């Protein structure tokens, strides 16, 4: 499934946090290469550094040292505005707790990144409806986020993450708030996304999700144990 030239390249990432007067080493030299079409699961116990790794490769936090490249662009070299633009157009984020804007409908939540990217109203409405249909929520487009179930909210969040056709979809415990049956629906959706060509990097405790991924990275104490 991999092609030449990584979509995402992380090299020797170190991340230290000051905590109660001491330094916590969240990542201790992590390197990662993800190619187009990969489905990567990052697994490990709590505190192993997997979420920190996802934040660094997603450009929402900065490493103490090391570098991250998305499609050949080094994130450290970007100004805040450029990094924001890169997150908007190249990356898609899915959170454990969905984090939809409650005052907006499902369609409006999906439209938000497209509006920010400058897409015209008609075009983004059409694409939002198309994406919601893709995740199985064609009939719920005009419901507010608060009127949706947990599984439905996560589907909307996935549609939102796909809005600007990102190079990589980053998900942090996407089934963590869902029951087993609903979690399975999300796994099925991820499998379908990957089969349709979406590159996925998923942080998870869920063994089923890890088993679905084509590649599993095990982390412990800020290091990669196995890939």
């Amino acid at each position, binding site marked *: 499934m991999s092609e030449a030239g990584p979509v995402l390249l992380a090299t020797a990432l170190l991340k230290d946090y000051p905590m109660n007067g001491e330094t916590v080493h969240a990542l201790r030299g992590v390197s990662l290469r993800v190619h187009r079409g990969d489905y990567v699961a990052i697994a490990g116990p709590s505190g192993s550094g997997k979420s920190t790794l996802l934040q660094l490769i997603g450009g929402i936090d900065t490493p103490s040292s090391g570098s991250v490249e998305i499609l050949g662009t080094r994130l450290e070299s970007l100004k805040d505005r450029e990094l*924001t633009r890169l997150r*908007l157009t190249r990356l898609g984020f899915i959170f454990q707790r969905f*984090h939809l804007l409650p005052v907006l409908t499902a369609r409006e939540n999906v439209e938000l990144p497209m509006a*920010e990217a400058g897409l015209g109203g008609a075009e983004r409405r059409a694409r939002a409806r198309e994406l919601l249909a893709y995740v199985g929520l064609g009939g719920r487009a005009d419901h507010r986020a608060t009127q949706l179930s947990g599984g439905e909210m996560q589907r909307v969040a996935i549609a939102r993450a796909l809005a600007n056709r990102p190079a990589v979809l980053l998900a942090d415990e996407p089934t963590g708030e869902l029951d087993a049956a609903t979690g399975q629906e999300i796994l099925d959706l991820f499998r379908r996304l990957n089969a349709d060509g979406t590159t996925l990097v998923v942080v998870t405790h869920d063994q089923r999700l890890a088993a679905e991924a084509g590649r599993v990275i095990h982390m412990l104490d800020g290091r990669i144990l196995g890939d």
Partner: protein
Amino acid sequence: MIPVSLPRWLGASGLFCLLATSPAAAQVAEVAIERALARELELSVGDTVRLGTAPDSMDRRAVVAAVYEPRPDPAEIAKRERHLRMHLPDLAALLGVPDQVDRLGVGLHPGVSADSAAAALNRTAFGFRAYPSSAIAAESSQTFLVVSRFHRAIAVITIVASAVFLLCIMLLKVEERRMDAAVMRFVGVRRRTIFGALLLEAALVAAVGSAAGTGLAFLAGAATNAYYRRFFDTALTFSQITPQIVLFSVLLSLALGLAAGGLASWRLVRTRPMVLWGRG
């Protein structure tokens, strides 16, 4: 006719009046009484009253020739006095001092300056002093000017307190959005967009607040007027909300709302997304 003041309970000073129900007789004086007095004494046109300067000397009879509605006067309202009007000779005869007048009003032809008329009278007359009505009005309005300044001071304090309260509300509202703002930043929404959205929300809150406040002010004003008009039995307007006041209030509310919302939003968007996320 000359207006004569009566204390409301009709017996302490000046002039006394006793209700009589006999029909009007010939040669009796005519008086006009104000509506409130007529209502309180259950008098109507044609009734006869006895007048005097003391309770034991009410030997003058007068017939009620008219019931009138006095022009509302805020300077008079708290005095709780009642008035009747008599012809000057009748009043002089009643008081027994034909040549004694405390106050009298002089009507001027249209176009004649009150100031110059007063000056002319003061130059030629002896034993009294003439004032233009504007000077008397200004003098009698001093209390109201003081009250007005007091109201203004209360308004300023209220506005300052409201501004602080509004700022706190806006800060709290914006603080509630920390997670939303962090997620929006993560998915690539610019600071400017978030700031604009929050500012728009602040403006909407201020606009809705000022509309609600204006509505409430009109209701409170109507209730105030209804209560005090009934209490003082007058047609005076106690609370008045002019278009200028509404405009000033709405603009001030919008300005304060935008300032408070802008300050709170600016603080939010300047914070690093990871700090907003609670992991910074």
